């Protein structure tokens, strides 16, 4: 019996030991489908900045009597912003001893403006400066001027000869989209800003549309809603449109106007509704005595200044330098803005708003 017990115990222990040290643990191989990325050659579009050769066939004539024609899409007579531009034009003409004629339509009419460009070309002036308000519509008459050997430069409106696809000398003005975008960021950061509206008084003007687009993009980036509201150049009509919009959209408290023709009816609307600064946030483009007052009283947070006097003065100056000394603008865009005028620097421009600023 003892042996049997020993044998059973040994077998049991042996079985246990064998089980315990049965070898390395079993590894299970599991195969699963793994998606494999196949990289293939994809043609990539490479955009290169094409240097547009702007031929300016001009022999310098230092003593020449010059006369230029400037064609604008608006006039001082019905848009006070342009009074500053025309002041610049007249001052430059007087100081440089050249003759200038300013042409423009009686209302915002791009078709009429294009026709005026053609009529100006017939006059064979020594140079033409114009607003490239719609590069598609104006390309044909501008090309006619360039083909006729008349130096052409753009002021106030345009994006430069490369972006517009028209080989004029240079664009003297501000980057409109940037102005709207930076202005939009400032307004979006105002306390309590919820939703915004861009009051466009000349829908169809590529530059003004770009300002609104910049503003819309800035507000969307900050998580706010924004839209464009078309108003007109008639102040009473515009005030009614703004008022109706406000009644229908009471939560919109950020307003961007694009010039005195937008700001003035807006101020009238604020007064009529009795809205105080802080209830609505307002930013605008350009300066005028009313806008300067708005900044002073805190109604308006800032004005985006494109320095219109420089636009008018510079246009005449550049054409004169070209004709007299053969001097050519160096870059396709000669910026005059955007600059921001707000409470911190309003003192500089206060006295001159409407005339030189």
């Amino acid at each position, binding site marked *: 019996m003892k042996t049997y017990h020993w044998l059973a115990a040994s077998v049991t222990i042996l079985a246990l030991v064998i089980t315990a040290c049965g070898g390395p643990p079993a590894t299970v191989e599991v195969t699963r489908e793994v998606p494999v990325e196949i990289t293939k050659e994809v043609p990539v579009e490479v955009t290169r900045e094409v240097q547009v050769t702007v031929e300016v066939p001009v022999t310098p004539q230092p003593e020449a009597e010059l006369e230029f024609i400037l064609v604008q899409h608006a006039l001082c007579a019905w848009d006070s912003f342009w009074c500053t531009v025309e002041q610049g034009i007249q001052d430059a003409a007087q100081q440089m001893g050249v003759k200038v004629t300013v042409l423009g339509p009686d209302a915002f009419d*791009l*078709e009429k403006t294009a*026709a005026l460009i053609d009529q100006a070309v*017939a006059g064979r002036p020594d140079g033409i400066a114009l607003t490239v308000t719609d590069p*598609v519509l104006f390309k044909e008459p501008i090309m006619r001027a360039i083909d006729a050997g008349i130096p052409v430069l753009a002021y106030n409106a345009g994006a430069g000869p490369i972006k517009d696809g028209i080989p004029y000398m240079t664009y003297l003005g501000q980057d409109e989209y940037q102005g709207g975008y930076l202005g939009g960021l400032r307004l979006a950061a105002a306390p309590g800003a919820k939703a915004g509206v861009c009051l466009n008084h000349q829908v169809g003007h590529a530059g003004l549309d770009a300002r609104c687009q910049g503003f819309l993009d800035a507000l969307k980036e900050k998580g706010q809603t924004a839209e464009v509201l078309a108003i007109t150049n008639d102040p009473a009509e515009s005030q009614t449109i703004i008022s109706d919009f406000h009644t229908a959209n009471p939560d919109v408290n950020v307003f961007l106007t694009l010039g005195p023709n937008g700001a003035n009816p807006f101020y009238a609307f604020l007064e009529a509704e009795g809205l105080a600064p802080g209830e609505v946030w307002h930013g605008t483009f350009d300066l005028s005595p009313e806008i300067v007052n708005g900044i002073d009283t805190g109604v308006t947070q800032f004005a985006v200044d494109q320095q219109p006097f420089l636009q008018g003065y510079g246009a005449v100056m550049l054409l004169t330098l070209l004709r007299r000394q053969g001097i050519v603008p160096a870059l396709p865009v000669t910026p005059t803005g955007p600059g921001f005028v707000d409470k911190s620097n309003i003192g500089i421009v206060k006295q001159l708003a409407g005339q030189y600023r």
Partner: protein
Amino acid sequence: MTVVTRLRYQLADFSEVVALISFVAVFLFFTIAAKNFLTLFAISNVLTFASITGIVVIGVAVLMISGEFDLSVGSTFAVASYVLALSINAGVAPVAALLLALLICTGLGAINGLIVTTSGIPSFIATLGTMLAYRGIARAIGGGVFASYKGERLLLFDVLNGPMDIVNRLSDPPANLRVSIIWFLVVAVVMSWLLTRTRYGNWVFATGGNPGAALAQGVATRRIKVINFALTGLLAGLASMLQFAHRASVDPLRGEGMELIAVAACVIGGVRLAGGYGTIAGACIGMLLLQMLEQGLVLMRVPVQVFQAAAGLILIIAVVSNLNLSRQE
């Protein structure tokens, strides 16, 4: 009879000759006073720009001869371009879009005619109302914004208003003649023939000259007026198509003020405001004179503010001289 009186009697039958004399006088003035006026480029500018409004003027002239006014032509002009732009952008075939626009304009004109003939409201007032209404339609369908066609250049546009490059290249720099000039000429010749050589034309003069007598003589004055209003709408639409074919963009204010330019051109051309008297040739000369005025003043470097004043002055001179020179005593 003195020479002057005899001349006046002779001129009474040819009101367009008076317009022609004014035209030649202004032409000579600009030839002397404005540099570069007598160039193919400047003259082509005048012809091309005058041809668009000129087609509208022809319609307005026929209507004025039959004794009515249409102040809504500018608004109809805008509606036509919007219909064309929006239809083409929506994928409608260009020719179909064109026909749709023309049909709508003829309809708008016919509505004018029906309002005037059935309600008895003076056409000046009735079309003042439709001017605002049709402008509202243009703004509504366009959403208050520009409408443009930005696609590939269409053959239809070249047929309607392409540049006449073969002729343009003959001058250096190239001139600015466009096919719309030919359309203007064709419409002028056809309407002139219809007015002077057909019974319809006879009835138009009768309706305008003495509606009571005409009606008594069996002239369908109502029908003539409705037809003329529809015709004015159609021609405004056609002019709009031609302008769009050149610059493929339309804004909500397109054509504003066109109605007054059209009436001015007609009056300068010898068409009588009271009706019953006038010629298509005279109205065309009036339009060309106004356009020539604009180009000439630009060439003379006159400030742009003077344009309207100059046009107004010429209008008054033309009316006074038309009344004096062609008065039948």
